[in-house]
């Protein structure tokens, strides 16, 4: 597990977006134990990305939103029972027929997590996953991360606070990476000349 750290605007989210394929990266190679080193564009198919925005449609119910979002993380149609399990795990089962307008920010984040946890990709990219989550939900998220690590997955996370420190098992497996050490603005145009 890799913890990307640095002040606002240093490019933490951009790194995650490039790894996910959402930003066109000019060059770069990525690899991790168990797979060969790939160019960054090919690496994208290994990743599942959880962004800092919650694209939840206010016109739909919670259940409809989850069904729609699950398509992004799971290529085949998801079994309703799996969706039910995720909603129960995120404590949203009782609200499943409510309109998504009524959801609070934290509940929206949990709904996103419910969809995200359906993914089977070996690399997780989490962009500020704990924003808006309360203490129990953060603890549960850290538990999911630990489970994923045990299952052999890799996690790259950006966060301003290490919410996973509550789990003593997870803490030693986290490598901190300060992005300040790498910043070099506008290198692209300089190299061109």
């Amino acid at each position, binding site marked *: 597990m890799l913890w990307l750290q640095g002040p606002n605007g240093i490019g933490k989210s951009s790194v995650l977006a490039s790894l996910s394929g959402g930003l066109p990266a000019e060059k770069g190679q990525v690899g991790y134990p168990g797979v060969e080193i790939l160019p960054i564009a090919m690496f994208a198919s290994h990743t599942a990305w959880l962004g800092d*925005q919650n*694209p939840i449609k206010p016109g739909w119910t919670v259940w409809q939103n989850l069904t729609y979002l699950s398509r992004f993380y799971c290529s085949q149609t998801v079994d309703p029972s799996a969706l039910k399990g995720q909603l129960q795990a995120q404590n949203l089962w009782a609200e499943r027929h409510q309109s998504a307008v009524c959801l609070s920010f934290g509940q929206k984040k949990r709904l996103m997590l419910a969809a995200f946890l359906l993914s089977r990709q070996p690399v997780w990219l989490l962009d500020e996953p704990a924003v808006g989550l309360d203490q129990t939900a953060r603890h549960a998220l850290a538990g999911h991360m630990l489970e994923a690590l045990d299952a052999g997955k890799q996690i790259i996370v950006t966060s301003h606070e290490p919410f996973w420190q509550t789990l003593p098992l997870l803490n030693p497996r986290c490598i901190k990476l300060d992005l300040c050490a790498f910043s070099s603005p506008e290198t692209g145009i300089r190299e061109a000349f």
Partner: protein
Amino acid sequence: MPYLYELFWEVRWQWRLLMAQPKALLNPLLFFCLITLLFPLALGHAPDLLRQAAPGLIWVGLTLSVFLILPNLFMPDLQDGTLRLWVACRRPLSVYVLAKWVTHWAFFVLPLILIAPLLGVSLYLDLSQSWLMMTLLGFGSFAMVGIGTIGVAVMQKGHYNPFLLAVLILPFYVPILIFGAGSLQPSSESMAFANGLLFLAGLVIFTLFLAPWAATQMLKLTVAQS
């Protein structure tokens, strides 16, 4: 065919998204009626003049209405982050563009075409021509929305510039207007209608290949910017 299945799935969900706010349909409908009924007030109510101008007026009214519908296509999804999810999760954006195109046309534009003969009555248009007019309007407006997807995909930081949109896409509407309205002129021969219909159908097929590709490329750049 997983691609067609994906497309079908997405069309169904985009349709559900539009049906969640059915009242939004009233906006372009009212706009279309008002803009078309404005012309007799400005041109005078001489029946001959209006009958001659009617196809053109209806086409211009429909073009302006389509133009107002277009911003609704991608902007909400860009603002709430759905589009970033599309790109980051590597689902084919052409599915998205096609689904938006088809559903928005069916939801917003089809009702306009259905009431077009009614507006034609107010412009003294020959009612026997209604079916011809509706067919031409249908093909033409479908191609219009398709070309429009390319223009509205050019956005900066979640905002689009209506003037830029006009300059970008209206030149490409020239053939549609020429063939769509030209085939309906009372003076034109009966062959003109068949020609116009064939041309518009060809243009639809052409746009079906061109627009999803171009709009996909534009959307990727737009999402990377936001």
